[in-house]
Structure formats: C-alpha cells, structure tokens
C-alpha cells in the first residue's frame, strides 16, 4: 500500500523478473531473479495487471485462459482440463466460447484473473484489483482471495483501497517514495497516525472512529466492523445496565 508513485507496482514487477534490481537481490524460492527469465519466474509468480484490456486478445475466453498454459508448454489434454477448472471456479464457464471483448468490464477483469490462475502459480500478485468494482463484486473478490490463501497460495495485493484491506485484515507493507516505511498487521498499521501520514493514505473509518474514543478505554487498532461492534457492545450494555440501575 502507498500513494500513487510510491513504488508498489515497481516492486511487484521485481517479483517475476520484469524488472531486475540495480542493487541488492530478489529471490523466488531461493532462485535469484537475475538468473532466470521472466517466463521461468512467471511460472511460479503470476501477476494480474490492473487493466484487463492490456491482456485480452483471443477469439474466445477459452483460448485466452489457455494462452499462458500453451506458452509454458503444458500438454494439450492438461490445458483443456485446467481451462475448464478455472472457468468453473470463476463462474465463467458459460462464456467459454464467447469473445472476451463482448463482456462487461467486471467480467473482463474476471477473465484476466482466470488467465493467470489457469497455471496455478504459487504466488499471486493482484495489481489494484478493486478499481471500478462495485461492492458486491468486491465481496466476491475478497472471498475468492481468502479461499486461495487458505489453499496455500501466497496472495499479494497492490492497492490503496483501505476499507477493502480493513475487511481482509492481511499483513500490510506500507511504501512511500520507493521505500518500505512499515510492515505489520493491517489493524496495527492502518490505525497508526504517523504511518498513515507517511504513506499518504487515509485511515479506515473504524480506525478513525476509535482513535477518537480512546478516552473511553477502547483500543486504537480497530479496523474491522465486527470487532468494533463487539467492543462497543460490551461498553454500551454496561451503560444500559447502569442507566437502568440508577433510575
């Protein structure tokens, strides 16, 4: 996370070899990225770019999703199966033989995601996946990401959507002007005034709320609505009881 120009996408591109470091080293599973080609690294690290229009070129969704598999040299039989599986998982099976250009914006984003998930990279990088999505689409995306993560995949999200991050509560890396300024759990990092300021972000609403309720003994590192509710519930019930007792 970080403002535009902080270096988030630049860092992401280092992870699959599109960019090579001019100082220091980047290793993926122990392999130095300068010693491997982008194609080799991409096999393990998949980047889903922000704008699906930068990827789509095939006649059908099926071909599009199978493109990378072909490039990586999978067997035709395997390709067919993988494509089917991925289309099912992303609810795109009914579009398999449609041209990707006829789909809506949100659907094209799903096709782009499918195109990368098809080869099941161990590390998945999503560049600004929530832009232009409405709340329902974001909900689906969140569930999908959590599901992937629970299956053992590493997921890296480049984003500045603090509310979305607050809902996922992952580990957060804050960047500013090409440096990492903080690393930690979302609720700690996003509720810290100093860090938020440095990274030019805004605090999630819950954090803003609780930073002003400190006087009542509430913790500050709250970003999730449900945790907020539980904390307030306690105190509010106490108040209710006290009010009832005194009357």
């Amino acid at each position, binding site marked *: 996370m970080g403002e*535009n120009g902080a270096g988030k996408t630049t860092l992401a591109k280092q992870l699959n070899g599109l960019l090579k470091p001019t100082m220091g080293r980047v290793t993926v599973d122990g392999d130095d990225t300068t010693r491997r080609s982008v194609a080799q690294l991409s096999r393990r690290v998949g980047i889903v770019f922000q704008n699906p229009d930068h990827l789509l070129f095939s006649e059908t969704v099926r071909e599009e999703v199978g493109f990378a598999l072909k490039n990586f040299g999978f067997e035709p039989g395997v390709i067919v199966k993988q494509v089917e599986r991925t289309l099912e998982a992303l609810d795109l099976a009914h579009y398999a033989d449609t041209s990707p250009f006829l789909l809506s914006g949100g659907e094209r984003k799903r096709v782009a995601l499918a195109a990368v998930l098809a080869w099941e990279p161990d590390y998945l990088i999503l560049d600004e996946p929530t832009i232009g999505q409405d709340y329902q689409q974001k909900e689906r995306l969140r569930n999908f990401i959590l599901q992937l993560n629970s299956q053992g995949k590493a997921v890296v999200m480049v984003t*500045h959507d603090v509310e979305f991050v607050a809902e996922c509560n992952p580990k957060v890396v804050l960047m500013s002007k090409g440096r990492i300024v903080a690393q930690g759990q979302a609720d700690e990092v996003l509720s810290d005034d100093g860090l938020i300021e440095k990274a030019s972000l805004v605090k999630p609403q819950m954090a803003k709320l609780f930073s002003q*309720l400190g006087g009542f003994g509430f913790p500050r590192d709250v970003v999730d609505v449900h945790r907020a509710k539980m904390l307030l519930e306690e105190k509010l019930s106490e*108040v209710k009881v006290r009010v009832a007792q005194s009357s």
Partner: protein
Amino acid sequence: MAGTQGEIIAARGLGFQYAGSASKALDDINIVIGQGEFVLLTGPSGCGKTTLCRCLNGLIPNFHPGEMSGELLVDGVSVAAETTSELSRKVGYVFQNPENQLFALTVEKDVAFGPENLGLTREEIRARVDWAMDAAGTVELKDLAPYELSGGQQQRVALAGVLAMKPSVIVLDEPTSFLDPRTAEEIMGAVDDLRRENGITVIVVEHRLDLVGRYAERIVVMDHGRIVADGKVEDVLDAEFDRVSGLGIGLPKVSLLWSLLKRDGLVSERLPTHVESAVKMLSERLSN
C-alpha cells in the same frame, strides 16, 4: 413541475434503450433536482447511473444511439431538442478516467478548449481560463502536458476544463476510481467548495459512499434502470438500510456498525453517515 423556479433538472417517465440492446437501460425515471443540490447517484454495476448522466448532457442519444422515451428537462429546456454542443454550456461532465479526457499538449490549452468552442472573444476566453484554473487549483500546472500529471492533477484539470464552460450543473461519473483515497477526498472537497461558492448543482456517481457521504445531502439509488430510493442520505440509509445494503452498495462502515448495534437494541438514534457524527453520538451515550 418541470421548469419551475429553482429546478434545474426534471425527468418524467424517462426511459432509454441502447441500440442493439435487448433491455431498457432506464425505465420510468422520475426525478426533480433543485439548483445547488449535491446529489449522490449510486447503485450496483449496470444499474443505469451512467446512462442517466449521459442523458443530461446529450451524449445520449447523440453519441450513444438508442430509443429515448419520456421527458427530460434541463434548465427548462427539453434535452431532446438540443445538441450535445449546446447542452455542454449547461451541463459539464467529468469522466472516470482522468487521462482520457485531456487531449491538448498543455493544461492551459486544454482548459481553453471548451470556451474556444463557444465563440467567445479572446479576452473572455482568457478570463474564463484564468478563473477556472484558479478555482480548480491548477494554476501551477498550466504549462505541463497531460501525461506529466498525476491522476489527481489530471482530474483537477478536467474539472477546470468543465468549469470554464460555466455550467449550472456538473456531473462527475466515478471521478475518484483511479485516485488514491487522500486525493479522492481533496477532489470531493474541492467540488463541494465550488458548489457552495458558485451555486453549481453537483451530481456524483459513486459506489463508495464513505468518500462522498460527508458532502452529499441527497442520495438517489438505482437498480436495473429504475430509481429505488431517493431522499436525504441519513433518511434513506436509516429507513431502507437492509434494502440498500442488499443492493451491494459500499455503505459507510459507521452506518453499518450502527445498524448492527441498533439491531441488538444498543442504540436508537438515526444512522450516522460519517465518522464525526458517530463519534458525537457514541461519546454522549458512553458518558452517561
């Protein structure tokens, strides 16, 4: 009634179907917007928000052909009778993608583009450009090229270009999608300031209510081409919370929190729409 004093936009039975589409994008839209209002137009993807906006400045049906039915009046004149060029004097439009609205090689030339089309004298154009660039906070950028600007700067320039037309209504279609949250708040604040200082009516299409909730007085919720809720933000969120949240709109977290607490009978006030009012209400309660 349409054309009445103080009303700037009036739609009656407005409907629209894009050419080649099987279903109506807008279905029986009835709405009246007064001069100087700040309206938040929201709804799930594909509900018709952008379609409605395009009707306001003539892009529908001139740029996007299709069948239009019903009546839509802007500033007393029916849109069906005017061209986009004529309507651009009344209704300004800021698009979602900051970069694709700017065509000139310098900011100053881009802002001048609109007034140049109006057939004004050079002095008038100069005056408008200077005013608009100042109002939108882009004076230091005037000799830069669009691709040298950040997303937020580009949106400000787009805003300046629209202001230079001196419209009475400005429509912003998801203007902050590509911007980071801090810049988004700045832009929304700037828009609200402009509204107050110049009496411009503002219509913002946005999914994320927490960004705009602080400024918008009125919210219009659409779904499947119809208006399903229309009223003051606090009223709509309070009365129709479940329905509205079921539509998948990005409700402010404080409102969501409040509705959860209310359900358990822990609070009874109306839903807050932004943090400040929530803080106030909670502090009061907890101090008892």
